[in-house]
């Protein structure tokens, strides 16, 4: 249930004709707009004052009148007449009622204690006079602009236009010290180096500012700052939380991916595509230095959610997980709260439950998988060459054995019993003894794309042919140490057991029920079986408890240890077939084979199993030539290719499963599904939202495409608004993750649309957008405000001055490290372990604490353990990673002061700074203070500040002297002074 808080009611209880006398051409402090817009001028008045009784909810509607639709507002009233007659104010009862002075007639009624202002009445009147044009919700209308997209003054013009309307006067440009500090912090999250400050101040050329901006835009620290902004959207964490806080493999690789992407200014449309469907892109984007594919790393954001430990109701667990995926995806990329439509159609936005379950199908069709982190074009090429070599070997053998072709034709099919694919006791889920994988999916390179049937077995030393492989799925079909996984289509569990005939070493067979991955005891332990046997063995899974659930089988070399996937070098797995059965393992399975589809192509030795058998027998009997010296070099080259394909580095990602449509779950309860299934598609209210995805898989590629369709009104707007938010501390739409009807209206709609159009026109370049904004005069203004401004625009919506803001948690900590010169600017890599205080207790606590100073690394490199979040980060409002947070809270609590006053890290850093200062061997006291001021505040101390410092030192020396007259006194007093500096508001506020 959703609660609406609308304070004012209008009741149209009875109608009467009354004389109206009022001056409708009066003057207002803020003149009426030339064209009254429904979304920006009229709807807010109606929502606030009318909709409780005349809105969408029929249960509270009065007089059968609804003002939320054009049809409703212009319909004939029960009592006669019409509330609104477009273009005819005199015939519109609404106008008569709002201007009425009779307490029994006026709207809103007096008992609501609410009154329309004269300006509001005039707006409604003028709007009806102009034709009462109804419009779709503003954010669903595509952005348009008449401005010149290359005009460098466009932003200032559009900001200025609204300031003028509000009668505000802009303040002057900030001084250069403030400017460089502002740009440096907002672009890189770090204070400027004093040398940079001096250089900028000394540079009096016209281009000095733009040059300075480019320095920070091109700094590697830029990516570290903007990646962290993005990480707030995707609930970035390196563990799965819940009971034991398991690691999310390679989460940090996604963090590094973001840093590189922002630094390289990868176009936003590409970033979006890589997130939504990076695994499905035909043209992947490679890391320029390493050649490794970047695109698939984007999909890691899907797996950043919470992971439940042994949920009893695994289907509900899936529903919760998918809900979180939908929530994060739609908020992040579309600024819409689609998750609200889980239980019923959205109460406020035109988003239906069907929309939600259309996306649910997309997510349900998406599977999770370890993904090798080092896939490159080179590897893809090597894999292809390997396959080509194998084909070559087959062809070679076939041509030399051409005489055997005819005798093979006569081989008897009866050598194999043909078994039914299904009978009352069992169902064959997959048979790999033929030449293919029986519609299973082979992911990665290990298994190749066909079974081993007919592969020549060659002695690598001599090149002698030992025989032909029988049919099986083998992870060493190409060679050992290569990643791959063989996965079945989805099935509904309807038998007590699943059986897989397999052998192998250090490998696993897993039953994935409802996409549940954290398989372990209690409950699920039996669903992950280790394979360590050199002989064919029947692996049996008792799935009786999950009958009716959706599941698939995963056959994978290597395995999971505490949910971290490892691929030992000697790991391999081979499988013949998989079945579902009741009672005993069906006996005829072992010899029998299902041969519904038999390939028979001698030229490539793509022949049925019985022919392979016969040829092997003939070979044994010496009927066939077995010396193939040509094969030896081929085998050698193959081994070299295999070495190029080996991998041992993974991240948790996704791969595309088999397309599933979902029913609607009544009231969000999966136990109450609708009869109809909702085809996978986008949101029906947006353009192309009705086009059903045609993909046989999840349809995520199509999802990315519709989000990037030129008619999508949200994608570009939402992103430019996020950029604006990070630069000004507030978005043009303040509710950065909600552009729906309950979100705030844009303060500068024309500006937002201009930026949205420009962003697309500039090739979705984030850096260009940032450059355009920070080089505007609006951005450069001082924070100083006079009382007039404070009164007229108390919240600084119109940006006559630059907003004062507190720095984020990371910027505060990193800033301290920079000014003490102890920042280790090493980029990338595994996170630095969390420093565990006594207060951070509970299950899953790491055995060892990380270092208190995080090895001096930037905060973005500190581990994010869901159940052991860094207290300094959370206290300074870094969001708890469970949903999208495009805008952080800014709280002000004593624990923040306590950290800066008493936290051992801050004290340690103060001491370090004092030591640095001693080392510098500067002569005078004043010089030292100035050094500190330049480091910490990017400016010199004033004479007043110098004097205060001097007095403070006198006092400190007296106190220290009493306690300790040792040589360390000088160090001790400077430490106290530096510690005080960190506690100054100027240090944590951008002013």
């Amino acid at each position: 249930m959703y609660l609406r808080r609308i304070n004012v009611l209008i009741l149209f209880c009875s109608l009467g004709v009354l004389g109206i006398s009022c001056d409708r051409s009066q003057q207002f402090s803020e003149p009426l707009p030339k064209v009254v817009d429904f979304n920006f001028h009229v709807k807010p008045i109606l929502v606030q004052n009318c909709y409780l009784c005349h809105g969408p909810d029929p249960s509270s509607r009065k007089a059968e009148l609804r003002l939320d639709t054009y049809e409703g507002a212009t319909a004939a009233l029960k009592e006669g007449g019409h509330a609104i007659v477009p273009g005819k104010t005199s015939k519109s009862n609404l106008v008569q009622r709002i201007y009425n002075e009779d307490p029994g007639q006026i709207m809103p009624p007096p008992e609501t204690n609410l009154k329309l202002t004269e300006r509001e009445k005039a707006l409604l009147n003028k709007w009806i006079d102009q034709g009462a044009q109804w419009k779709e919700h503003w954010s669903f209308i595509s952005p348009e602009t008449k401005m010149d997209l290359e005009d460098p003054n466009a932003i200032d013009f559009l900001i200025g236009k609204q300031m003028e309307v509000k009668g505000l006067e802009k303040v002057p440009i900030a001084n250069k010290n403030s400017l460089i500090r502002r740009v440096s912090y907002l672009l890189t999250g770090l204070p400027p180096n004093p040398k940079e400050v001096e250089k900028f101040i000394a540079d009096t050329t016209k281009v000095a500012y733009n040059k300075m901006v480019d320095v920070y835009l091109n700094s590697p620290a830029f990516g570290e700052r903007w990646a962290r902004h993005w990480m707030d959207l995707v609930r970035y964490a390196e563990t799965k939380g819940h009971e034991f806080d398991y690691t999310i493999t390679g989460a940090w690789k996604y963090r590094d991916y973001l840093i590189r992407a922002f630094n390289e200014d990868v176009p936003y449309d590409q970033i979006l595509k890589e997130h939504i469907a990076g695994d499905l892109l035909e043209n992947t984007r490679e890391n320029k230095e390493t050649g490794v594919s970047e695109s698939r790393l984007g999909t890691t954001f899907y797996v950043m959610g919470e992971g439940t430990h042994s949920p009893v109701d695994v289907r509900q667990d899936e529903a919760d997980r998918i809900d979180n995926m939908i929530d994060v995806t739609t908020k992040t990329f579309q600024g819409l709260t689609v998750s609200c439509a889980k239980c019923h159609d959205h109460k406020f936005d035109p988003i239906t439950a069907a929309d939600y379950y259309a996306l649910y199908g997309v997510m349900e069709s998406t599977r999770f998988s370890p993904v090798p982190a080092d896939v490159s074009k080179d590897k893809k090429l090597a894999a292809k060459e390997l396959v080509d070599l194998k084909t070559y070997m087959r062809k070679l053998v076939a041509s030399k054995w051409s005489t055997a072709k005819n005798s093979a034709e006569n081989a008897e099919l009866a050598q194999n019993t043909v078994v039914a694919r299904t009978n009352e006791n069992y169902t064959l889920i997959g048979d790999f003894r033929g030449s293919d994988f029986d519609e299973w999916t082979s992911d990665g390179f290990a298994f190749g794309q066909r079974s081993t049937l007919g592969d020549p077995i060659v002695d690598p030393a001599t090149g002698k042919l030992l025989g032909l492989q029988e049919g099986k799925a083998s992870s060493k079909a190409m060679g050992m140490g290569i990643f791959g996984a063989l996965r079945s289509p989805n099935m509904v569990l309807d038998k007590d057991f699943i059986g897989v005939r397999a052998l192998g070493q250090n490998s696993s067979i897993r039953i994935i029920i409802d996409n549940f991955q954290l398989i372990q005891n209690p409950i699920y332990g039996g669903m992950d079986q280790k394979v360590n046997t050199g002989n064919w063995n029947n692996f049996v899974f008792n799935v009786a408890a999950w009958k009716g659930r959706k599941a698939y089988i995963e056959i994978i070399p290597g395995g999971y240890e505490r949910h971290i996937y490892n691929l030992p070098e000697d790991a391999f797995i081979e499988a013949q077939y998989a079945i579902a059965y009741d009672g005993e393992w069906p006996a005829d399975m072992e010899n029998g084979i299902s041969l519904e589809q038999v390939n028979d192509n001698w030229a490539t030795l793509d022949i049925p199993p019985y022919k392979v058998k016969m040829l092997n027998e003939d070979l044994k009997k010496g009927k066939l030539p077995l010396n193939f010296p040509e094969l030896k070099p081929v085998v050698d080259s193959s081994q070299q290719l295999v070495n190029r394909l080996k991998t041992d580095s993974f991240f948790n990602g996704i791969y595309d499963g088999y397309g599933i449509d979902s029913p609607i779950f009544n009231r969000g309860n999966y136990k109450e599904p609708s009869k109809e299934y909702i085809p996978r598609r986008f949101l029906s209210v947006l353009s192309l939202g009705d086009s059903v995805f045609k993909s046989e898989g999840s349809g995520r590629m199509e999802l990315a495409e519709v989000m990037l369709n030129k008619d999508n009104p949200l994608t570009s707007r939402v992103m430019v608004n996020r950029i604006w938010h990070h630069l000004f501390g507030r978005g043009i739409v303040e509710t950065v993750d909600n552009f729906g009807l309950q979100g705030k209206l844009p303060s500068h709609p024309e500006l937002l649309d201009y930026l949205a159009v420009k962003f697309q026109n500039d090739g979705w370049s984030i850096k260009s957008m940032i450059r355009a904004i920070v080089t505007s005069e609006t951005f450069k203004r001082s924070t100083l405000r006079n009382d007039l401004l404070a009164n007229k625009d108390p919240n600084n919506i119109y940006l006559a001055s630059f907003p004062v803001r507190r720095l984020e948690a990371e910027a505060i900590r990193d800033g301290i490290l920079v000014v003490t010169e102890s920042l280790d600017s090493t980029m990338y890599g595994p996170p630095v372990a969390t420093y565990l205080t006594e207060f951070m207790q509970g299950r899953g606590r790491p055995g060892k604490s990380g270092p208190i100073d995080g090895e001096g690394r930037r905060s973005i490199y500190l581990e994010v353990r869901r159940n052991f979040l860094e207290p300094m980060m959370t206290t300074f409002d870094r969001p708890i990673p469970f949903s999208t947070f495009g805008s952080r809270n800014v709280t002000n609590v004593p624990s923040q002061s306590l950290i800066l006053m008493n936290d051992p890290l801050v004290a340690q850093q103060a001491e370090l700074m004092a030591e640095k200062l001693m080392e510098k061997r500067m002569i005078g006291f004043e010089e030292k203070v100035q050094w500190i001021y330049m480091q910490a505040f990017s400016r010199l101390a004033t004479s007043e500040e110098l004097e205060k410092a001097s007095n403070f030192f006198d006092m400190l020396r007296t106190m220290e002297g009493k306690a300790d007259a040792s040589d360390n006194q000088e160090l001790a007093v400077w430490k106290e002074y530096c510690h005080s500096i960190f506690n100054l508001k100027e240090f944590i506020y951008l002013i």
Partner: protein
Amino acid sequence: MGHHHNTKPRVISRREMLGLSAGGFGSLAFMGLFGTLPFGCKRASHLETASNLYLGPHYLPKAKNVIFLYMDGGVSQVDSFDPKPRLTRENGEDPRKKFKVDATQFDNVGKILKSPWDFKQYGECGMPVSDLFPHIATCVDDIALIRSMVSNFPEHTNANYFLHTGSGLQGRPSMGAWMNYGLGSENKNIPGYVVLDGGLVPPGGLDNFKNGFLPASYQASVFKSGPEPVANINPREGIKNLQEEKLQFIKQLDSSLIGKIGEADAVESAISNYELAYKMQSSIPELTEFKEETEATKKLYGMDSDDPNLRGYASQCILARRLIERGVRFVELTCPNVGPGVDRWDQHSNLKKGHEKNAHAVDQPIAGLLKDLKSRGLLEETLVVWTGEFGRTPFAQGSDGRDHNPSAFSMWMAGAGVKGGTIFGKTDEYGYRVIENEVTVHDLHATIMHLLGLDHKQLTFRFGGRDMRLTDVHGNLVKDILA
């Protein structure tokens, strides 16, 4: 983030705040300046993003404070407050022949297991209590017992989140955070939501106590026993008065900054925050040292016991009383760690030893707390809540344990607004399922809020496009236990 507001909080004017620039550090009378705003929220900007600010109750409250005695792991209802003679009669029989057995987390269903403890009737009301809790038994006339609790989750972590936040998922605000959001704290020098970490942080971790999407000011402060009860509460300066001098210096410089910038409100708040932080430094140690507690009081709680776990929990109970005396809105006590294999109430095996050790540690301190509160007249304004996250099965797990049971468990409340000596709800003859007057966790939340004067349907916060509630879209008052 999707915050909106329709109601603006009372904003302290800048002039009121500028008292700051005068006088020495710690000399300002801040008390009372902030009305009933929550702890740490003098006028912080985040309040302006709150969707709906109820600075004060919706109606006349019965309780001012809550002490939440969290029985981590799930106490067995049939061994504590819900006697089932049939278990004794059918001890050792196959439960599946008697009733439908639900899937459990460990799926190791054993035989029907009788309670190893006897039950006796106590007090004027005659409430039966097992021998596990001889001290609490002496307080039954103040206790309203609910035997018909159910949870939605049979796993600890989900169930813990559910009990604490009303949702089985991570990241939602804890009830202590909601209470403080709704009511604020009466004391400006101590946080309004305190968790006394007795040794065990429940599964799910500190997220059980977090603010979720509410502003960070509403999260719990975790207190530990030992020399630094609250993180960063002890000054690092080795020399007396040095910190005061530094803070004075800081304030001087900060104050001169105010004149140089616009929109100084947030900065002013940050400055005054130091005043609060400074005061916390002295008020917390004063609180955790029991200087003025008499020997008799300490003995009442069991501070003279030989059992170190009992002494530890006794000290937490005394601290809880001292906290609510000082106006802390919500205090939660976690369980002591009574030793390997039997930590928390989660006895999948070794029921007898485990429940006995846990009960021994908490029984006397809890009874002491109830009696002490009563004798001081504090029980009238304090709600004491005792519950685990779910119950346990009436049949064995293996031979001598009990598995999780979300289908029935017992909890009790005592104190303000609660009808003492009441038994509400009923389970079947095995204590396996509720058959009468089912009470959900949402109902419990609604009832606790009601006693504090809060309407659970009205206390909302806009997040992600929805007006969020502790009780989501659920919750009915348990009227029968209200006085």
